[in-house]
């Protein structure tokens, strides 16, 4: 039985852990940055319309960051995030504008197609054991071609006004698309933390061999991760279609880099096994803040990429330095050397690249 005292202690421990986490740092940075921007714009930035624009363009970065997080949590990469998003957006646009499909059906079809593409990618990776990097590079190429074939050189903008209105709707200055992204993030967090399927995903990413010994099929987890990743990209495509003035071949073209930047800044490890939904969302906030600041001081848009690059570099290098520092401290206290995570050595040795579709 757990007493209230215990619970208080545990809550304290959770709080302590949180206070030292990446998410806490990001939260502070976000709040401070936001307030600083507000001060710099003499309060204008804190007012309704500005908040609304700020959040409006935050939805897609959050969703693609989450899509990448999902792939990363089993140690996979998804290079096709942008291409799949663009393809799905164009598909929905075409369905609505040219084929006259009603908006709800078109949206549903788009999301399903995106998830299916993710599923096929995952199955392909598992079946052929080709590195996921290369496979998603291949699917990215194919999807880019498909997107172009769908949309050609035109911009599709005569689709459902209802969807447009929903995309622009912002009760209490909170855009619906932003709320959609938040709901997706909350669902993903709940799935990863609470659902058996989500825990299996993380277990397979954290220690594939151990997961396999506990009866968790790492192959299935890889397929599931890619499917979920595709699903989230599909949702991102919906928010993009709803809030953009029109869709064309340029949609998704600049999604790839931010999709990696958000999880990496948010504290997700590229080796799999960790997931940081809150961190990813906050990292998207930070990147959006940089963009907003750039607009505020009317600087060249290129500053954004430059700064994000530095932030990513700073995050990983800083994290690494802290880790080695901790390890050094750890070894002086603890005499027994920490066992190196012997990831899948013995069982995997049986077949070249067995566990490693990564």
């Amino acid at each position, binding site marked *: 039985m757990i007493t209230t005292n215990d619970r208080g202690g545990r809550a304290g421990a959770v709080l302590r852990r949180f206070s030292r986490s990446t998410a806490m740092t990001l939260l502070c940075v976000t709040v401070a940055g936001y307030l600083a921007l507000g001060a710099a714009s003499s309060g204008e930035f804190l007012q309704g319309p500005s908040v609304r624009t700020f959040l409006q363009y935050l939805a897609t970065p959050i969703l693609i960051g989450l899509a990448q997080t999902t792939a990363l949590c089993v140690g996979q990469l998804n290079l096709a995030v942008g291409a799949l998003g663009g393809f799905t957006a164009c598909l929905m646009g075409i369905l609505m504008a040219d084929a006259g499909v009603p908006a709800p059906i078109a949206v549903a079809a788009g999301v399903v197609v995106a998830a299916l593409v993710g599923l096929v990618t995952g199955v392909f990776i598992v079946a052929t054991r080709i590195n996921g990097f290369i496979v998603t590079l291949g699917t990215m190429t194919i999807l880019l071609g498909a997107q172009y074939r769908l949309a050609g050189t035109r911009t599709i903008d005569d689709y459902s006004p209802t969807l447009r209105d929903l995309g622009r709707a912002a009760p209490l200055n909170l855009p619906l698309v932003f709320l959609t992204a938040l709901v997706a993030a909350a669902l993903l967090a709940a799935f990863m933390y609470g659902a058996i399927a989500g825990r299996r995903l993380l277990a397979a990413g954290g220690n594939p061999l151990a997961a396999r*010994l*506990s009866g968790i099929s790492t192959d299935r987890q890889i397929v599931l991760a890619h499917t979920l990743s595709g699903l989230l990209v599909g949702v991102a495509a919906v928010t993009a279609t709803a809030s953009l003035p029109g869709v064309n071949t340029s949609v998704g073209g600049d999604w790839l880099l931010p999709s990696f930047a958000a999880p990496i800044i948010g504290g997700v490890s590229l080796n799999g*096994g960790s997931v940081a939904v809150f961190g990813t969302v906050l990292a998207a906030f930070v990147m959006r803040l940089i963009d907003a600041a750039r607009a505020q001081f009317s600087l060249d848009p290129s500053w954004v990429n430059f700064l994000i690059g530095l932030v990513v570099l700073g995050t990983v290098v800083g994290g690494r330095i802290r880790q080695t520092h901790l390890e050094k401290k750890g070894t002086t206290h603890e*005499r027994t050397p920490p066992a190196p995570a012997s990831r899948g050595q013995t069982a995997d040795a049986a077949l070249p690249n067995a566990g490693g579709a990564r």
Partner: protein
Amino acid sequence: MSEVLLECREIVKVFPGVRALDGVGLRLTAGSVHALLGENGAGKSTLIKVLTGVHPPDAGHLTWRGEQVHLRTPLEATRTGIGVVHQERNLIPGFSVAENITLQNPPSRHGLVDRQAMNAPALRCLEELGLDLDPHRLVRELSVAQQQLVEIAKALHTQSEVLLLDEPTASLSPQEAENLFQVVRRLTARNTCVVFVSHKLEEVFAISDTVTVLRDGRSVLESAPLADHTHDDIVNLMVGRAHTAAKMLPRTPEPTSVPVLALDGICTARGHQDVSLAVRPGEIVGLYGLVGAGRSELVKAVLGLDRVTGGEIRVDGTPARIASPRQALHEFGIGYLTENRKEEGVFLEQPIHRNITVTVWKKLARALGVVSSAEERSVAQNLVERLGIRASGLDQNAGELSGGNQQKVSLAKWLAADTRLLIVDEPTVGVDVRTKHVFHELLWELARTGLPILLISSDLTEVITLADRVLVMADHRIRGEVGNDHHYERMSGRIIRLIHDRAPSAVSAQQDAK
């Protein structure tokens, strides 16, 4: 006669280049502790993996309570009633203790993890081990010993009828190990069969009822009562004494010459305290210790891969600071044959000749760093012949060779470099008896030609066969030194006593170094 739970006959398992299991039989009866013994590489871990569905056997039968079963996945094995603690760390670092313990069948409601329901069984398993641990803590925050205990708790949770423990005490303190043995006894009282794999024969004799001994992938003693056998019988069966009693030409190291390598009071960031040793020309110095005693870590620190925090390293009598294995090789002529052949020793996907000549490219290189391919091949060819490496050609990938031949390739690269000191770490792990013998002769001959060798081994026979002096290491300290008289019974007794005598007795070692 109690009920036979699991029986296997004529189990065969083949990996590329090696038949890991070759006709193994085993019979496990309810309510007994069954010891599974054998030297490193004899096939114990492979057998356990076959029994738990990790590797499907290539041939042979498994019967569970008299009915034939096919265990294709670990989950099937668990459902059948076979639980296991593997040698490798099999915990998810980012999960809590409770979640790791219940990983195989987490309590759930409508597909959602029920974290409350997780704690009770986790606490019960932890309590059974006498372990006071908060089930909410993340596994990555635990110490190695705690993680090991959590793994055992995890195996307890599946409530198996057969529980396989692969080296469960390797990183436990004597007190923790004793707790574990009590649990084992309680389990057998409940009619569970516990299979116990350990290198520590005292432990085996203390708790086991029956024993199976594997050698070279075969069972040389099958499910026999342990009481019928003495300590020595078992050791003889494990090592196959017939092979080891070979005649070798005598060797006379000079005890007075300047040591090629001397460590004086070395302390490292890994926790080594006051380690002193000396290796003289023509001498084989054995460094014996159990897995986890810190032997390889010591060498890696000396080679500059880890921080040395105190003491002095002397090469040929002059104090030296070694910053990297490269410097150790090219400036001081020290070669290190690693114990971890597949990960640190050979380049599996590279041809043999590159594997061998990697250490001498610097010497072979001419203007612009050009290395003549012909010269490279002739160096490699020489060594392939000298060591009797069985390969179809120099272009064959090292990964396609058998374990013993891979190890020879790994050694060949240091012989090519013509080092002045060789540090050999567990040279015959996972190597069959015949190659092992060849290796012993080889090392002996090398020492006879004047090459000093520091032999790290947890194989007592090996150390007693080869070494002139044996240093015993435990818990990152030198516990003492024994001059070798090559008499197995006397020597093994002394060495084992040194390990278990926990009082610091590094005095003799220090005296010797000075």
